């Protein structure tokens, strides 16, 4: 789960990490009011769940009071990578002497928690990693040590980022605290870019990005409250509440599949035969007919859908249960588009028998199903 910069900074400050406070504004007027409580200059920063805000014009400095209203208005009118900016963070500007990159994340490759650092901060770390991989420093931390990382472990890493002995000590302090936030809040990423040294020699987290592990939210109800409902797709949340995994896409062919890998492969197959999937939908491992009904409702909400392709490979999922779900859906509401169905595996005969009096287009294989669906979905 993504949270906003201002929320991440609050988590950092709670842990004792120096991160400038600020005020969140949802309108230009609120931004003006915020500046009355802060010292100029201020920075106005778009609060959206994407990177590259600066490049997109979502981070601006204001030196004079009269600049605040138009600047806030401009940023609140932006859409950055498809996400409208609904709130801004107004925060005092810092005097930057040095900028570095620091994060702690879970590294899939080494299967451990890892600090990543780079003495060139403030730029996109992916770009640096691709162009000058030698500049990227790392420090693996055993997960059992995260609550109290040894300073000795961190020292060489911190010395790679800062040359001043006092700044190295400050950075180690910050890393110890950051690792604690990381483990206590079940994060998958805590990133500070840039981590700065200001004109007084103080090490400060000028930005903050935190990703939380969705699987661990059950033990952090207070973090669940940080979810920005404006930034989430309501259909995707509804789907998840019903045990479905759903992502809306741009095409015309609705998909209903059991299993995430097969759902992706089904989308790929549709594309291969010239169609365009309208969604990713995994009905999951169990074969509850109600899930099928919910899946139909989600798919049919999209007016672009011209045909639905159902691809089921029954294992634990039983084809007859899927068929019952389809029959229940057809009884409960009108399905105004053709349905192409491929049922294979556990109880496929029973499933087909249940559907024999319906108008469904039955196919034997996925390639055939995708071809048929692409044929229908492609018609204007």
């Amino acid at each position, binding site marked *: 789960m993504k949270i906003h910069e201002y929320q991440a900074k609050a988590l950092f400050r709670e842990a004792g990490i120096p991160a400038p406070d600020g005020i969140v504004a949802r309108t230009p007027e609120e931004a003006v009011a915020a500046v009355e409580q802060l010292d100029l200059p201020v920075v106005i920063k778009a609060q959206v769940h994407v990177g590259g805000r600066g490049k997109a014009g979502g981070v601006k400095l204001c030196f004079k009071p009269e600049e605040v209203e138009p600047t806030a208005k401009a940023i609140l009118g932006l859409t950055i990578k498809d996400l409208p900016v609904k709130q801004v963070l107004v925060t005092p500007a810092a005097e930057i002497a040095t900028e570095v990159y620091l994060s702690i994340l*879970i590294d*899939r*490759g080494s*299967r*451990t*928690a890892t600090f990543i650092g780079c003495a060139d901060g403030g730029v996109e770390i*992916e770009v640096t990693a691709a162009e000058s991989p030698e500049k990227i420093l790392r420090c693996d931390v*055993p*997960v*059992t040590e*995260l609550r109290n990382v040894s300073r000795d472990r961190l020292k060489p890493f911190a010395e790679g980022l800062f040359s001043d002995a006092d700044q190295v000590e400050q950075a180690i302090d910050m890393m110890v605290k950051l690792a604690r936030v990381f*483990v206590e809040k*079940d994060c*998958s990423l805590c990133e500070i870019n840039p981590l700065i040294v200001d004109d007084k020699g103080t090490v400060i987290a000028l930005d903050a990005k935190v990703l939380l*592990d*969705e*699987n*661990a939210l*059950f*033990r952090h109800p207070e973090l669940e409250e940080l979810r920005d409902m404006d930034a989430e797709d309501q259909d995707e949340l509804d789907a998840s509440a019903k045990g479905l*995994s759903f*992502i809306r*896409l741009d095409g015309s062919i609705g998909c209903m*599949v*059991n*299993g*995430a*890998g*097969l*759902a*992706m*492969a089904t*989308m*790929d*197959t*549709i*594309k*291969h035969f010239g169609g365009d*999937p309208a969604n*990713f939908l*995994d009905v999951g*491992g169990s074969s509850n007919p109600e899930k099928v009904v919910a899946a139909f409702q989600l798919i049919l909400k999209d007016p672009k859908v011209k045909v639905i392709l159902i691809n089921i*490979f*029954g*294992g*634990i*999922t039983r084809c007859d249960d899927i068929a019952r779900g389809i029959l229940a859906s057809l009884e409960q509401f009108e399905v105004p588009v053709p349905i192409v169905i491929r049922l*294979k*595996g*556990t109880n496929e005969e029973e499933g087909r028998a249940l559907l024999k009096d319906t108008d469904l287009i039955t196919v034997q*294989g*996925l*390639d055939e199903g995708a071809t048929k669906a692409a044929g229908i979905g492609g018609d204007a």
Partner: protein
Amino acid sequence: MSILINKDTKVLVQGMTGRDGSFHSQQMIDYGTQIVGGVTPGKGGQELMGKPIFNSVQEGVEATGATVSVMYVPAKFAKEAMLDAAKSEIELLVTITEGIPTLDVLEAYEALQKRNIRLIGPNCPGLITPGECKIGIMPANIHKPGKVGVISRSGTLTYEIVQDLTDAGFGETTCIGVGGDPIIGSKFIDLLPLFEADEDTKAVVLVGEIGGQDEVQAAEWIKANMTKPVVAFIAGQTAPPGRRMGHAGAIVGGEDDTAASKKKALEGMGIPVAELISQVTKLISV
């Protein structure tokens, strides 16, 4: 021959007394898997399906000589169960459970590593040596003893490919679902050497998907070490970046973990990658 498990493998089931655990225990017993007992803390001394229940994995190991434990414990309690397995003398832990917090998996993985216990999963369908031993949740009837090894990050997608292998007459030596999470105990490169060493395995099918670097690592390992033919399929060519496609591990982060870049890396190492599921078996010639 096969890898990791065969007809003599003795298996404990952690969470056997739960709903999923008892259902799949019965399925495994019906298949012929030597289920020698279950583990549920606090229920030691009871019996289920004629098998003894133990309070801890080690208790079960001492009483039965089991070398494998398979886990159906709910995600909230999975860490404790995995740490319990890490205190025992088993050789292999198969964690079926989906949705375990990543830091819990990491902690358990570290503990298992220290004891040299191999982990498969979490969030996986398990593994099967057809005709001998099934450990997990995969449908048994699609598998047939044969000569192709399968390693996959997916469940139903693998069943689809296995069905094709069986229909085409290849059959399988062992099929392993390694799991769809970002942190998994056994990756492609951890298992490929076992298939390379197994006499009966004549070819390997690798089923990957978007997210992570496992396929790229595997490609390099195969090029350097593998004498047997490997073919691959990568799901998620059409997946949009930044979105988690069902599996927690299936998310395109940067340019190098897309399906296209994985396909390119594999093909660059001489490993054919099927465009369609139905083409996988056509790429195998043994």
